[in-house]
């Protein structure tokens, strides 16, 4: 169908609706994305960090210092030409460690979301679709998990184990599914009475088919937006856990851990705190901007923040 412009008068503004094909629609979303400075900024920040993280060994001057390493001659060096971010208490280059720290943060986000999102979405679909007792039980469970702030719950769970990064990730993942479960549940509930779902039922589609063919695609944009925003938040919680000593353990270069150690040396060795802090802020901000831009672009009203 050719593009036709139709101007309709509503209120005192004019809306322009275009009739277009699917390809046009994707193109149009992309166009809006491109024009939205916020999503662009967010996207570029995130991709920049991902790039750095992937190519960390190649972009950092001292990749070997990301692990256990000591250079006691060079401890506590302020930022200089050879060490852009200075060196830490055992002489390691902070810049290198920050970039490798990005690796850890991104991996954490990926693992946590990779586990919790599918699980949460699945439970959300089931509970929303089948309703009844199943739904009540699942929703009550999510209520309990959501009764405590994420960080606190993660703390409580981490308390049960010896602190390592893996345990921290599992702990966060075990809470995180609840958000997605609720989101998908809400969407499913509102769609399941819609005509196209009824139509599928009439045709005789199995429940599974209906869930995947009819309902899930409608949740897709909301989930996408939420995942992007979640990434930032998961990284925040992860950094918090590391800061408290429960996440990434030394000598691994977790950003939160670095800040924690650096804090003891304020204000004289400020670079130990400031650079990792900025780095983590940059990444979280990027995800937030990106998620926000996606939300605008996809016209999604997501639940909560």
């Amino acid at each position: 169908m050719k593009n036709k412009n139709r101007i309709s008068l509503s209120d005192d503004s004019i809306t322009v609706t275009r009739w277009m094909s699917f390809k046009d629609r994707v193109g149009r979303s992309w166009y809006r994305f491109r024009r939205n400075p916020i999503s662009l900024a967010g996207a570029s920040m995130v991709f920049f960090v991902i790039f750095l993280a992937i190519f960390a060994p190649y972009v950092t001057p001292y990749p070997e210092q990301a692990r256990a390493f000591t250079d006691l001659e060079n401890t506590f060096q302020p930022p200089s030409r050879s060490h852009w971010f200075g060196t830490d208490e055992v002489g390691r280059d902070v810049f290198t460690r920050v970039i490798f720290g990005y690796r850890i943060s991104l991996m954490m986000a990926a693992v946590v979301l990779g586990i919790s999102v599918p699980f949460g979405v699945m439970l959300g679909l089931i509970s929303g679709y089948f309703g009844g007792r199943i739904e009540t039980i699942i929703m009550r469970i999510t209520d309990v998990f959501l009764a405590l702030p994420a960080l606190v719950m993660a703390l409580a769970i981490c308390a049960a184990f010896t602190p390592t990064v893996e345990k921290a990730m599992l702990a966060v993942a075990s809470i995180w599914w609840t958000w997605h479960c609720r989101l998908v549940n809400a969407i499913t509930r509102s769609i399941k009475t819609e005509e196209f779902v009824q139509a599928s039922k009439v045709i005789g589609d199995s429940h599974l088919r209906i869930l995947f063919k009819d309902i899930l695609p409608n949740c897709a944009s909301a989930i996408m937006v939420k995942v992007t925003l979640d990434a930032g938040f998961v990284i925040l919680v992860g950094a918090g856990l590391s800061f408290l000593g429960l996440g990434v353990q030394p000598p691994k270069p977790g950003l939160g851990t670095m800040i924690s150690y650096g804090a003891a040396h304020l204000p004289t060795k400020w670079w130990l705190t400031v650079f990792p802090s900025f780095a983590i802020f940059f990444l979280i901000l990027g995800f937030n901007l990106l998620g926000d831009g996606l939300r605008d672009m996809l016209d999604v009203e997501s639940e909560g923040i």
Partner: protein
Amino acid sequence: MGDPYMLEIRNLDVHFRIYEGISRVLDGVSLYVAKGERVGFAGETGCGKTVTMKAVMGMLKIPPAIIPHGEIFLDGRDVLKMSQRELQRIKGTEISMIFQDPMNALNPVFTIGEQLCDVIRFARRNRSSGVNLSKKEVYDKAIAALEEVRLPDPERIKNNYPLELSGGMRQRALIAMALVNEPSFLIADEPGTALDVTIQAQILDLLSELVKNRRISVLLITHNLGVIQETTERVYIMYAGQVVETAPTAVLFNNPRHPYTQGLLASVPRLTGGQIAEGIPGTVPDYINTHFGCRFHPRCSHVMPICSQKKPPFTMLETSQYVACYLYTNKGGQNE
């Protein structure tokens, strides 16, 4: 004042500056409502009726809207030259409005009574002709207004929230709010279209009665021709921002002259007769790339070369029937 007209719009142009360019919505719209008259303003959705109404009420946001040309007089006063303050004074008191969708027009977090009382209190203040009403007086007036619109148990309704009422009751409450301050001019924007047809009929009956009792001038805006026929004395037909025909209602319905009007009336399905209603071929025009001349010409089956060059003047046919169409110029009518 001795002005015979309640509302007079002369040659109004309204443009909107939007992203794609300038949308020339209204083109030389002229109409008038005499005092005590009930005038209909009909046209399909998107033809500019609401924009016209908003221009009259001073509700257009001036950027992006531009009024390059035209005058609007309300009881002799130039609306376009009024300050916001003056406009606010006459809104609700001399000129009032009934909205299309009562659910959207009522604030959901306040009771009906509260909103109604606010309208009463501020009108008094705006009028500055009387002293402020006491609480009891406001209350009494509110109850009286609710009774007048035939709401059962006004005491209870007063304490209800909009969500708790049915659509018909909300519309009545809205009418009460519009009429409580005894305006001399009422603009009704598609009253009852958001409601069930039967309820709409009730609302329209109520409205007719109230209007008749109070001798208010009314401008009824709608796309529903049946409503026009039932409740108005004179009607304007609008297409794409241009007024194309106007006549006393009975005259127009008996003998529509403009091709668009004819098409419109033909497209109303008849319950009897076994004919299939015809639509009018084509689509609503693009306001950005407007056509010269008569805006209906691309869809008109009687189109002539001159139609695309110059806008047709109004030709008067018989008594008070004016058509803007080249079919009728030089055909024995008087050109305006």
